[in-house]
Protein backbone atom coordinates (compact mmCIF):
# COMPACT_ATOMS: atom_id res chain seq x y z
CA UNK A 1 0.00 0.00 0.00
CA UNK A 2 2.88 2.39 0.86
CA UNK A 3 4.16 2.22 -2.76
CA UNK A 4 1.00 4.11 -3.85
CA UNK A 5 1.69 6.81 -1.32
CA UNK A 6 5.34 7.21 -2.35
CA UNK A 7 4.47 7.09 -6.06
CA UNK A 8 2.11 9.99 -5.42
CA UNK A 9 4.63 11.98 -3.39
CA UNK A 10 7.69 11.40 -5.61
CA UNK A 11 5.80 11.86 -8.90
CA UNK A 12 4.21 15.00 -7.53
CA UNK A 13 7.55 16.33 -6.29
CA UNK A 14 9.14 15.92 -9.75
CA UNK A 15 6.18 17.83 -11.24
CA UNK A 16 6.58 20.58 -8.61
CA UNK A 17 10.21 20.98 -9.68
CA UNK A 18 9.05 21.30 -13.30
CA UNK A 19 6.41 23.86 -12.33
CA UNK A 20 8.97 25.89 -10.36
CA UNK A 21 11.33 25.88 -13.36
CA UNK A 22 8.47 27.29 -15.48
CA UNK A 23 7.05 29.82 -13.03
CA UNK A 24 9.97 30.93 -10.86
CA UNK A 25 12.93 30.65 -13.21
CA UNK A 26 10.67 31.60 -16.17
CA UNK A 27 12.13 28.87 -18.37
CA UNK A 28 10.13 27.86 -21.43
CA UNK A 29 8.64 24.36 -21.69
CA UNK A 30 11.44 23.17 -24.00
CA UNK A 31 14.13 24.17 -21.52
CA UNK A 32 12.20 22.65 -18.61
CA UNK A 33 11.77 19.37 -20.44
CA UNK A 34 15.46 19.22 -21.36
CA UNK A 35 16.57 19.92 -17.79
CA UNK A 36 14.32 17.15 -16.42
CA UNK A 37 15.50 14.60 -19.01
CA UNK A 38 19.17 15.45 -18.43
CA UNK A 39 18.65 15.30 -14.65
CA UNK A 40 17.20 11.80 -14.98
CA UNK A 41 20.19 10.78 -17.10
CA UNK A 42 22.71 12.21 -14.61
CA UNK A 43 20.95 10.56 -11.66
CA UNK A 44 21.15 7.20 -13.43
CA UNK A 45 24.82 7.86 -14.20
CA UNK A 46 25.36 7.92 -10.45
CA UNK A 47 23.12 4.89 -10.05
CA UNK A 48 20.49 6.85 -8.15
CA UNK A 49 17.45 6.60 -10.42
CA UNK A 50 16.86 2.83 -10.22
CA UNK A 51 16.60 2.92 -6.41
CA UNK A 52 14.08 5.74 -6.81
CA UNK A 53 12.00 3.54 -9.14
CA UNK A 54 12.17 0.67 -6.63
CA UNK A 55 11.01 3.06 -3.97
CA UNK A 56 8.28 5.02 -5.79
CA UNK A 57 7.29 2.85 -8.78
CA UNK A 58 5.29 4.79 -11.35
CA UNK A 59 5.98 7.97 -9.38
CA UNK A 60 9.49 7.78 -10.86
CA UNK A 61 8.81 6.01 -14.19
CA UNK A 62 5.97 8.19 -15.49
CA UNK A 63 7.62 11.68 -15.30
CA UNK A 64 9.93 12.63 -18.16
CA UNK A 65 13.03 12.25 -15.92
CA UNK A 66 12.55 8.53 -16.44
CA UNK A 67 13.28 9.01 -20.15
CA UNK A 68 16.76 10.34 -19.33
CA UNK A 69 17.24 7.41 -17.00
CA UNK A 70 16.24 4.94 -19.73
CA UNK A 71 18.62 6.51 -22.28
CA UNK A 72 21.61 6.13 -19.97
CA UNK A 73 20.45 2.74 -18.69
CA UNK A 74 20.19 1.24 -22.18
CA UNK A 75 23.53 2.71 -23.24
CA UNK A 76 25.35 1.41 -20.15
CA UNK A 77 23.85 -2.07 -20.42
CA UNK A 78 24.75 -2.41 -24.10
CA UNK A 79 28.22 -0.95 -23.49
CA UNK A 80 28.99 -3.77 -21.12
CA UNK A 81 28.47 -6.37 -23.87
CA UNK A 82 29.51 -4.45 -27.02
CA UNK A 83 31.87 -1.76 -25.78
CA UNK A 84 31.71 1.78 -27.23
CA UNK A 85 29.46 0.76 -30.12
CA UNK A 86 26.99 -0.42 -27.52
CA UNK A 87 26.62 3.11 -26.19
CA UNK A 88 25.25 4.15 -29.59
CA UNK A 89 23.07 1.09 -30.19
CA UNK A 90 21.87 0.79 -26.61
CA UNK A 91 20.75 4.36 -26.09
CA UNK A 92 17.43 3.80 -27.80
CA UNK A 93 16.98 0.18 -26.83
CA UNK A 94 15.00 0.72 -23.64
CA UNK A 95 13.37 3.89 -24.94
CA UNK A 96 12.39 2.50 -28.34
CA UNK A 97 8.81 1.76 -27.25
CA UNK A 98 8.23 5.37 -26.21
CA UNK A 99 9.86 6.84 -29.30
CA UNK A 100 8.12 4.43 -31.70
CA UNK A 101 4.77 5.11 -30.02
CA UNK A 102 5.30 8.88 -30.42
CA UNK A 103 6.02 8.45 -34.14
CA UNK A 104 3.20 5.95 -34.82
CA UNK A 105 0.53 7.86 -32.91
CA UNK A 106 1.81 11.11 -34.42
CA UNK A 107 1.24 9.69 -37.90
CA UNK A 108 -2.21 8.38 -36.97
CA UNK A 109 -3.14 11.75 -35.46
CA UNK A 110 -1.87 13.56 -38.57
CA UNK A 111 -3.96 11.32 -40.83
CA UNK A 112 -7.14 11.97 -38.86
CA UNK A 113 -6.75 15.68 -38.08
CA UNK A 114 -5.33 18.72 -39.88
CA UNK A 115 -1.71 18.74 -38.64
CA UNK A 116 -1.17 22.47 -39.14
CA UNK A 117 -0.35 24.26 -35.91
Amino acid sequence: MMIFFWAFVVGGAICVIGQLLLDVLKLNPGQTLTILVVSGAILDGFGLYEPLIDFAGAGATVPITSFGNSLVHGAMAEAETHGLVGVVTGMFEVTSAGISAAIIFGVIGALIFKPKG
Partner: protein
Amino acid sequence: MLTGHQTWVFNNKPVIISTGTVGGPFEANGNIPNDFDLLHDDMWLKQDSFEKAQQTLMEEACQTAVKKSSIEKEQVQFFISGDLINQITPTSFAAKTIGIPYFGLFNACATSMESLALSAMIINAKGANYILSGTSSHNAAAEKQFRYPTEYGGQKPPTAQWTVTGAGCALVAQDGQGPKITSATIGKIIDMGITDPFNMGGAMAPAAVHTIETHFKERNIDPSYYDLIITGDLGHIGREISLDLLKKRGLSIQENQYVDCGLTIYREGQPVLAGASGPACSAVVTYGHFLNRMKKGDLHRILVVATGALHSPLSIQQNDPIPCIAHAVSIESGSDV
Protein backbone atom coordinates in the same frame (compact mmCIF):
# COMPACT_ATOMS: atom_id res chain seq x y z
CA MET B 1 -4.69 70.48 -36.17
CA LEU B 2 -1.53 69.98 -34.16
CA THR B 3 -2.27 70.78 -30.56
CA GLY B 4 0.63 70.48 -28.18
CA HIS B 5 3.36 68.10 -29.20
CA GLN B 6 1.64 64.85 -30.26
CA THR B 7 -2.10 65.51 -30.54
CA TRP B 8 -4.18 66.27 -33.62
CA VAL B 9 -7.54 68.01 -33.32
CA PHE B 10 -9.61 67.40 -36.44
CA ASN B 11 -11.46 70.63 -37.22
CA ASN B 12 -13.27 69.16 -40.23
CA LYS B 13 -14.65 66.30 -38.13
CA PRO B 14 -14.13 63.17 -40.25
CA VAL B 15 -17.12 60.81 -39.98
CA ILE B 16 -17.26 57.05 -39.53
CA ILE B 17 -20.11 56.44 -41.98
CA SER B 18 -20.13 52.66 -41.54
CA THR B 19 -18.23 49.80 -39.95
CA GLY B 20 -17.73 46.10 -40.59
CA THR B 21 -16.98 43.59 -37.85
CA VAL B 22 -16.34 39.88 -38.31
CA GLY B 23 -15.60 37.26 -35.65
CA GLY B 24 -14.82 33.59 -35.20
CA PRO B 25 -16.48 30.82 -33.18
CA PHE B 26 -14.95 31.83 -29.86
CA GLU B 27 -16.21 35.39 -30.32
CA ALA B 28 -19.67 34.10 -31.36
CA ASN B 29 -19.79 32.35 -28.02
CA GLY B 30 -18.61 35.47 -26.18
CA ASN B 31 -20.14 38.46 -24.44
CA ILE B 32 -21.12 40.62 -27.42
CA PRO B 33 -22.11 38.32 -30.35
CA ASN B 34 -24.88 40.72 -31.43
CA ASP B 35 -22.34 43.46 -32.10
CA PHE B 36 -20.74 41.53 -34.96
CA ASP B 37 -21.95 41.88 -38.54
CA LEU B 38 -20.73 38.42 -39.41
CA LEU B 39 -19.73 35.43 -37.28
CA HIS B 40 -18.04 32.23 -38.40
CA ASP B 41 -18.46 28.85 -36.75
CA ASP B 42 -15.17 27.53 -38.13
CA MET B 43 -11.61 28.77 -37.42
CA TRP B 44 -10.53 27.86 -40.96
CA LEU B 45 -13.23 29.87 -42.79
CA LYS B 46 -13.02 27.16 -45.46
CA GLN B 47 -9.40 28.19 -46.22
CA ASP B 48 -6.41 25.87 -46.13
CA SER B 49 -4.34 27.94 -43.67
CA PHE B 50 -5.07 30.13 -40.65
CA GLU B 51 -3.30 33.04 -42.35
CA LYS B 52 -5.63 32.77 -45.34
CA ALA B 53 -8.55 32.61 -42.91
CA GLN B 54 -7.32 35.88 -41.39
CA GLN B 55 -7.08 37.42 -44.85
CA THR B 56 -10.71 36.40 -45.44
CA LEU B 57 -11.75 38.02 -42.15
CA MET B 58 -10.18 41.31 -43.23
CA GLU B 59 -11.76 41.15 -46.70
CA GLU B 60 -15.18 40.46 -45.24
CA ALA B 61 -14.91 43.32 -42.73
CA CYS B 62 -14.05 45.76 -45.54
CA GLN B 63 -16.77 44.43 -47.84
CA THR B 64 -19.33 44.67 -45.03
CA ALA B 65 -18.36 48.27 -44.20
CA VAL B 66 -18.73 49.28 -47.85
CA LYS B 67 -21.99 47.35 -48.29
CA LYS B 68 -23.54 49.00 -45.21
CA SER B 69 -22.73 52.47 -46.60
CA SER B 70 -24.28 54.14 -49.61
CA ILE B 71 -21.03 54.31 -51.57
CA GLU B 72 -19.28 51.91 -53.95
CA LYS B 73 -15.87 50.38 -53.33
CA GLU B 74 -14.45 52.34 -56.29
CA GLN B 75 -15.11 55.61 -54.45
CA VAL B 76 -12.72 54.66 -51.65
CA GLN B 77 -9.25 56.19 -52.09
CA PHE B 78 -7.20 54.29 -49.52
CA PHE B 79 -7.09 51.15 -47.42
CA ILE B 80 -5.00 51.70 -44.26
CA SER B 81 -4.45 48.56 -42.26
CA GLY B 82 -2.06 46.07 -40.72
CA ASP B 83 -1.87 42.98 -38.53
CA LEU B 84 0.45 40.85 -36.36
CA ILE B 85 1.65 38.22 -38.78
CA ASN B 86 5.17 38.41 -40.29
CA GLN B 87 5.40 41.24 -42.82
CA ILE B 88 1.59 41.79 -42.42
CA THR B 89 0.89 39.39 -45.30
CA PRO B 90 -2.78 38.64 -44.42
CA THR B 91 -3.49 42.39 -44.73
CA SER B 92 -1.48 42.76 -47.93
CA PHE B 93 -3.25 39.81 -49.58
CA ALA B 94 -6.58 41.29 -48.47
CA ALA B 95 -5.49 44.62 -50.01
CA LYS B 96 -4.85 42.76 -53.27
CA THR B 97 -8.42 41.43 -53.22
CA ILE B 98 -9.92 44.78 -52.22
CA GLY B 99 -7.93 46.42 -54.99
CA ILE B 100 -7.60 49.98 -53.70
CA PRO B 101 -4.41 51.94 -52.88
CA TYR B 102 -3.00 50.65 -49.63
CA PHE B 103 -0.91 51.79 -46.66
CA GLY B 104 0.40 48.84 -44.63
CA LEU B 105 0.98 49.50 -40.93
CA PHE B 106 2.48 47.64 -38.03
CA ASN B 107 1.78 48.69 -34.48
CA ALA B 108 0.59 45.27 -33.25
CA CYS B 109 -2.63 45.68 -31.24
CA ALA B 110 -2.43 49.48 -31.48
CA THR B 111 -2.79 49.27 -35.28
CA SER B 112 -6.56 49.84 -35.04
CA MET B 113 -6.24 53.37 -33.65
CA GLU B 114 -3.04 54.09 -35.56
CA SER B 115 -4.90 53.49 -38.81
CA LEU B 116 -7.99 55.40 -37.63
CA ALA B 117 -5.86 58.40 -36.60
CA LEU B 118 -4.00 58.44 -39.93
CA SER B 119 -7.25 58.02 -41.88
CA ALA B 120 -8.84 60.90 -39.98
CA MET B 121 -5.75 63.06 -40.58
CA ILE B 122 -5.82 62.42 -44.35
CA ILE B 123 -9.59 62.96 -44.56
CA ASN B 124 -9.33 66.09 -42.41
CA ALA B 125 -6.68 67.50 -44.77
CA LYS B 126 -8.93 66.60 -47.72
CA GLY B 127 -6.38 64.13 -49.04
CA ALA B 128 -9.17 61.62 -49.63
CA ASN B 129 -12.95 61.40 -49.66
CA TYR B 130 -13.26 57.89 -48.26
CA ILE B 131 -10.76 55.65 -46.43
CA LEU B 132 -11.15 52.08 -45.21
CA SER B 133 -9.32 51.76 -41.91
CA GLY B 134 -9.11 48.46 -40.08
CA THR B 135 -7.16 45.55 -38.76
CA SER B 136 -7.44 41.81 -38.17
CA SER B 137 -6.03 38.97 -36.10
CA HIS B 138 -6.48 35.21 -35.91
CA ASN B 139 -5.95 33.28 -32.71
CA ALA B 140 -4.33 30.22 -34.27
CA ALA B 141 -2.15 32.22 -36.70
CA ALA B 142 -0.86 34.40 -33.84
CA GLU B 143 -0.28 31.39 -31.57
CA LYS B 144 1.68 29.69 -34.35
CA GLN B 145 3.95 32.71 -34.76
CA PHE B 146 4.40 33.94 -31.20
CA ARG B 147 4.08 30.87 -28.98
CA TYR B 148 5.62 27.44 -28.90
CA PRO B 149 4.69 24.94 -31.52
CA THR B 150 0.98 24.84 -30.70
CA GLU B 151 0.95 21.02 -30.86
CA TYR B 152 3.25 21.05 -27.87
CA GLY B 153 0.45 22.38 -25.67
CA GLY B 154 2.80 24.36 -23.43
CA GLN B 155 1.28 25.71 -20.23
CA LYS B 156 0.41 29.42 -20.08
CA PRO B 157 0.57 31.55 -16.93
CA PRO B 158 -2.58 33.37 -15.74
CA THR B 159 -1.18 36.69 -17.01
CA ALA B 160 -1.33 35.48 -20.65
CA GLN B 161 -4.06 36.75 -22.97
CA TRP B 162 -6.19 35.27 -25.76
CA THR B 163 -5.80 36.62 -29.30
CA VAL B 164 -9.13 37.54 -30.88
CA THR B 165 -10.10 35.91 -34.17
CA GLY B 166 -11.75 38.65 -36.14
CA ALA B 167 -11.47 41.82 -38.16
CA GLY B 168 -12.88 45.30 -37.71
CA CYS B 169 -13.05 48.02 -40.30
CA ALA B 170 -14.31 51.63 -40.31
CA LEU B 171 -15.22 53.58 -43.42
CA VAL B 172 -14.09 57.16 -42.76
CA ALA B 173 -15.55 59.99 -44.84
CA GLN B 174 -15.42 63.78 -45.13
CA ASP B 175 -19.08 64.11 -44.24
CA GLY B 176 -22.18 62.03 -43.71
CA GLN B 177 -24.14 60.46 -40.91
CA GLY B 178 -22.30 58.82 -38.06
CA PRO B 179 -19.87 59.29 -35.18
CA LYS B 180 -17.23 61.98 -35.69
CA ILE B 181 -13.51 61.58 -35.09
CA THR B 182 -12.52 64.67 -33.16
CA SER B 183 -8.90 64.19 -32.10
CA ALA B 184 -6.02 61.76 -31.84
CA THR B 185 -2.95 61.50 -29.64
CA ILE B 186 -0.05 59.54 -31.13
CA GLY B 187 1.86 57.63 -28.51
CA LYS B 188 5.58 57.14 -28.20
CA ILE B 189 7.41 53.93 -27.34
CA ILE B 190 7.46 53.25 -23.63
CA ASP B 191 9.80 50.50 -22.57
CA MET B 192 9.81 49.58 -18.89
CA GLY B 193 12.17 46.66 -19.43
CA ILE B 194 9.56 43.91 -19.19
CA THR B 195 10.65 40.83 -21.15
CA ASP B 196 7.78 38.42 -20.44
CA PRO B 197 5.55 38.06 -23.54
CA PHE B 198 3.02 36.30 -21.32
CA ASN B 199 2.36 39.53 -19.46
CA MET B 200 1.67 42.01 -22.24
CA GLY B 201 -1.06 43.79 -20.26
CA GLY B 202 1.47 44.67 -17.58
CA ALA B 203 4.04 45.73 -20.18
CA MET B 204 1.58 47.96 -22.07
CA ALA B 205 -0.08 49.68 -19.10
CA PRO B 206 2.57 52.46 -18.75
CA ALA B 207 2.25 53.25 -22.48
CA ALA B 208 -1.53 53.58 -22.13
CA VAL B 209 -1.15 55.83 -19.10
CA HIS B 210 1.40 58.03 -20.87
CA THR B 211 -0.84 58.52 -23.90
CA ILE B 212 -3.97 59.17 -21.80
CA GLU B 213 -2.15 61.71 -19.64
CA THR B 214 -0.68 63.45 -22.69
CA HIS B 215 -4.08 63.54 -24.40
CA PHE B 216 -5.75 65.37 -21.52
CA LYS B 217 -2.83 67.73 -21.02
CA GLU B 218 -2.51 68.68 -24.69
CA ARG B 219 -6.25 69.03 -25.30
CA ASN B 220 -6.57 70.83 -21.97
CA ILE B 221 -9.63 68.81 -20.97
CA ASP B 222 -10.58 66.77 -17.96
CA PRO B 223 -11.25 62.97 -17.95
CA SER B 224 -14.89 63.76 -17.15
CA TYR B 225 -15.17 65.08 -20.74
CA TYR B 226 -15.55 61.47 -21.91
CA ASP B 227 -18.33 59.03 -21.06
CA LEU B 228 -15.85 56.20 -21.43
CA ILE B 229 -12.11 55.83 -21.74
CA ILE B 230 -11.65 52.53 -23.57
CA THR B 231 -8.30 50.75 -23.55
CA GLY B 232 -7.47 48.18 -26.21
CA ASP B 233 -6.26 45.00 -24.59
CA LEU B 234 -4.74 45.61 -21.18
CA GLY B 235 -6.68 42.72 -19.62
CA HIS B 236 -7.13 42.27 -15.87
CA ILE B 237 -3.46 42.82 -14.97
CA GLY B 238 -2.82 45.81 -17.23
CA ARG B 239 -6.08 47.49 -16.24
CA GLU B 240 -5.24 47.33 -12.53
CA ILE B 241 -1.68 48.57 -13.10
CA SER B 242 -2.84 51.42 -15.33
CA LEU B 243 -5.55 52.50 -12.88
CA ASP B 244 -2.92 52.67 -10.13
CA LEU B 245 -0.56 54.65 -12.35
CA LEU B 246 -3.34 57.04 -13.45
CA LYS B 247 -4.19 57.71 -9.82
CA LYS B 248 -0.52 58.35 -9.03
CA ARG B 249 -0.35 60.80 -11.93
CA GLY B 250 -3.29 62.66 -10.43
CA LEU B 251 -5.86 61.84 -13.12
CA SER B 252 -9.29 61.31 -11.64
CA ILE B 253 -10.76 58.57 -13.80
CA GLN B 254 -13.71 56.70 -12.30
CA GLU B 255 -13.44 52.90 -12.37
CA ASN B 256 -16.75 52.55 -14.22
CA GLN B 257 -15.62 55.15 -16.75
CA TYR B 258 -12.53 53.11 -17.61
CA VAL B 259 -13.21 49.96 -19.63
CA ASP B 260 -11.05 47.55 -21.62
CA CYS B 261 -11.97 45.93 -24.96
CA GLY B 262 -10.02 42.84 -23.85
CA LEU B 263 -12.39 42.46 -20.89
CA THR B 264 -15.54 43.24 -22.90
CA ILE B 265 -15.47 40.77 -25.78
CA TYR B 266 -15.59 37.45 -23.88
CA ARG B 267 -17.90 36.02 -21.25
CA GLU B 268 -16.94 35.07 -17.73
CA GLY B 269 -15.95 31.44 -17.87
CA GLN B 270 -14.31 31.46 -21.29
CA PRO B 271 -10.70 30.27 -20.78
CA VAL B 272 -9.00 33.51 -21.80
CA LEU B 273 -6.81 33.94 -18.68
CA ALA B 274 -6.13 37.70 -18.22
CA GLY B 275 -8.41 38.75 -21.11
CA ALA B 276 -8.45 39.18 -24.86
CA SER B 277 -5.75 40.72 -27.05
CA GLY B 278 -4.82 41.06 -30.70
CA PRO B 279 -5.27 43.87 -33.21
CA ALA B 280 -8.86 42.77 -33.89
CA CYS B 281 -9.73 43.09 -30.19
CA SER B 282 -9.93 46.88 -30.01
CA ALA B 283 -11.16 47.10 -33.63
CA VAL B 284 -14.20 44.81 -33.32
CA VAL B 285 -15.17 45.97 -29.83
CA THR B 286 -14.89 49.68 -30.76
CA TYR B 287 -16.44 49.48 -34.23
CA GLY B 288 -19.05 46.96 -33.14
CA HIS B 289 -20.00 47.25 -29.50
CA PHE B 290 -19.10 50.83 -28.52
CA LEU B 291 -20.16 52.56 -31.75
CA ASN B 292 -23.47 50.66 -31.56
CA ARG B 293 -23.93 52.00 -28.04
CA MET B 294 -23.11 55.47 -29.33
CA LYS B 295 -25.73 55.12 -32.08
CA LYS B 296 -28.29 54.08 -29.47
CA GLY B 297 -27.52 57.25 -27.54
CA ASP B 298 -25.90 55.44 -24.60
CA LEU B 299 -22.56 57.15 -25.18
CA HIS B 300 -21.70 60.56 -26.57
CA ARG B 301 -17.96 60.91 -26.22
CA ILE B 302 -15.42 58.12 -26.04
CA LEU B 303 -11.64 57.99 -26.04
CA VAL B 304 -10.27 54.76 -27.48
CA VAL B 305 -6.70 54.00 -26.40
CA ALA B 306 -5.40 51.02 -28.39
CA THR B 307 -2.30 49.47 -26.84
CA GLY B 308 0.39 47.53 -28.67
CA ALA B 309 3.29 45.30 -27.62
CA LEU B 310 5.80 45.64 -30.45
CA HIS B 311 8.03 42.64 -29.82
CA SER B 312 8.80 39.86 -32.27
CA PRO B 313 9.49 36.17 -31.55
CA LEU B 314 13.15 36.89 -32.37
CA SER B 315 13.45 39.88 -30.01
CA ILE B 316 11.99 37.76 -27.19
CA GLN B 317 14.47 34.93 -27.89
CA GLN B 318 17.28 37.47 -27.72
CA ASN B 319 15.95 38.64 -24.32
CA ASP B 320 15.10 42.13 -25.51
CA PRO B 321 12.45 44.02 -23.54
CA ILE B 322 8.99 44.61 -25.03
CA PRO B 323 8.62 48.06 -26.61
CA CYS B 324 5.06 49.25 -26.02
CA ILE B 325 2.89 51.93 -27.54
CA ALA B 326 -0.62 53.36 -27.23
CA HIS B 327 -2.55 55.59 -29.61
CA ALA B 328 -5.70 57.42 -28.54
CA VAL B 329 -8.54 58.54 -30.81
CA SER B 330 -11.59 60.44 -29.57
CA ILE B 331 -14.92 59.67 -31.18
CA GLU B 332 -18.01 61.77 -30.49
CA SER B 333 -21.61 61.20 -31.53
CA GLY B 334 -22.78 63.27 -34.47
CA SER B 335 -25.38 65.23 -32.55
CA ASP B 336 -23.29 67.36 -30.23
CA VAL B 337 -20.24 68.32 -32.25
